[in-house]
């Protein structure tokens, strides 16, 4: 994606967000008939956001298309390396979501061990996967953090099925 395309797309998305916020703000209750109530700032912000998004799109439409060299270079790089990047970013996002879900059920220690181990494998790439070392690090780090915060600093953490 060129920066121009990115700007056009983000401009479009933000126009959508602005409109949604403006519509949603009608359901905010008002105490008395006054122009400046609880809904005033959200509505004003939505209008400014809309105006800025339109400005961003107009700016980019007026700009000349960037030279084509980027697009040819892109085709070459859309190889295995780029795919790997996408896989590692999306699996990181997935792992984070799973981590937040299991945190409630398995508790901090178990879910953190699972998260750390899988995340380390994802980030390590193909080369240095020493599974035993990673398991040990995950277990030690997870229990260490739990002990430090719960016993040392008296902070609550989800205990889960171990608690």
């Amino acid at each position, binding site marked *: 994606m060129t920066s121009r395309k990115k*700007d056009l797309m983000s401009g479009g998305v933000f126009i959508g967000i602005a409109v949604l916020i403006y519509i949603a703000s009608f359901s905010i209750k008002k105490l008395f008939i006054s122009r400046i109530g609880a809904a005033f700032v959200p509505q004003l912000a939505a209008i400014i956001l809309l105006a800025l998004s339109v400005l961003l799109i107009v700016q980019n439409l007026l700009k000349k298309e960037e030279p084509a060299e980027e697009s040819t270079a892109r085709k070459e790089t859309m190889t295995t390396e780029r795919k790997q990047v996408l896989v*590692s970013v999306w699996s990181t996002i997935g792992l984070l979501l799973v981590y937040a879900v299991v945190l409630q059920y398995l508790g901090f220690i178990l879910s953190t061990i699972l998260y750390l181990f899988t995340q380390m494998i994802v980030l390590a790439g193909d080369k240095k996967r020493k599974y035993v070392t990673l398991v040990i690090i995950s277990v030690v780090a997870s229990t260490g953090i739990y002990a430090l915060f719960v016993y040392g600093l008296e902070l609550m953490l989800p205990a889960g099925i171990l608690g």
Partner: protein
Amino acid sequence: MFEAFAIGFSSIFAVKALLLIFMGVAAGIVFGSIPGLTATMAVALFLPITFGMSPVEGMSLLIGLYIGGVSGGLISAILLKIPGTPSSIATTFDGHPMAQNGQAGKALGTGIFFSFLGGTISFLILFFISPPLAELALRFGPFEYFAIAIFSLTMIASVSTGSTVKGLMSGILGVILACVGTAPIDAFPRFTFGFYELDGGFSLLPALIGLFAISEILKAAERVYEVTEKDIQDYRIKGLGFSLKEFKGQIGNLFRSSFIGTGIGILPGIGGGTSNIIAYLTAKKSSKHPEKFGTGIMDGVVASESANNASVGGALVPLLTMGIPGDTVTAMLLGGLMIHGIMPGPLLFENSGDLVYGIFAALIVANFTMLFMEYFGMRIFVRLLKIPKHILLPIIISLCVVGSFGLNNRVFDVWSLLFFGFLGYGLEKWGFPLPPIILGFILGPIAETSLRRGLMLSEGSFVPFMTRPIAGAFLLVAILSVVMTSVGSKKRKPLKIDTDS
């Protein structure tokens, strides 16, 4: 004033507070020096540890992290040619060529010593201008606070990264995110979509940690950078690393860069990430031999390193006197103070003078600690550069989770953490700067509350916002700065700067 300082020093000259400062500086240097970890992240991660401490102890730790983090970036900037934090981008310009010319020790010594001096100059400015400024701010009413909040919002958009429009959009998005929850004054719920957890709005901490740590990890997932033995330049520091004569030649540069750093630090929302580059460019412009910049001369390192540390003192001025953060790290400090029920602002000097002067004292102690640790502990910090990222980053994520959960003991805040993390990553991919979001998030409610209070005072009239001298002046400057940058940005090519310090 001296009496107040004595009280401040006595509050931190306890074994625990001093240890916390040492620990903070050491951890800060590690975070600063490892590329991908920043001072902002360090402060975010250590915030949960301060929940159970007294305010002075907590602040001592965070101040140590802040100073260590801003300064630590010079190590990898010089030895690896990768800025450890955005605050040391300009340090690579001359610092790394110096290292390649066999002057790595001199570059490190210069960087460390001038970091110390830049910090010291800015702290002196902080000590002398913030008490009178707080006194002035005591007389500010809602009109003035509204104007200052609007001024701050426009400042960041116009001075920060590339596109003015995108900066403003980020800021507005922050304002909108801050609208979620209970409205000020009349307490009606807004945009909670049935989630009772959102009644209090998004918490500041998960938002900050998400935007600046989680999004950073996702960026790291794209390309895991590993440091190997042969990447690191050889170095040996002799004495201070430079001669007295060379020092004398840099005095003008030191003061100019420190004033630039402090000034940029005071401006809301931008800090060391911007000031080091502007100071470098200014030093080059006013130098007698600008062509030598970039080939490995002291001047470049001096300009960058004294400016970024000088931003620390500057950024604390608006935080302590008005409760408006001067950069992303001070936004974290604001969060840290609020956890203890302390709202920074003009009253802080009257109600918690011991805390204010405790913070001042911690700054001085942390600055000296940074100086000694970096001179004598360089070998250890360099060795830590080689910790594998695929092990370090996941552990940092789990600490982010601990921090978000520990605030209110609810998993909901972990979800907000992820929401802000994904949001930040997506926006950065689309070329939107992140610091304005935080500024909008903090300043939006200040602006809204002041606006509505002001309108109640003036019975619905907008006139006092323009006619009160201080309020009117700030609003005028705000409008001018937006107009000037949007006109100016068409002519010049925008400089790409990451303003996250």
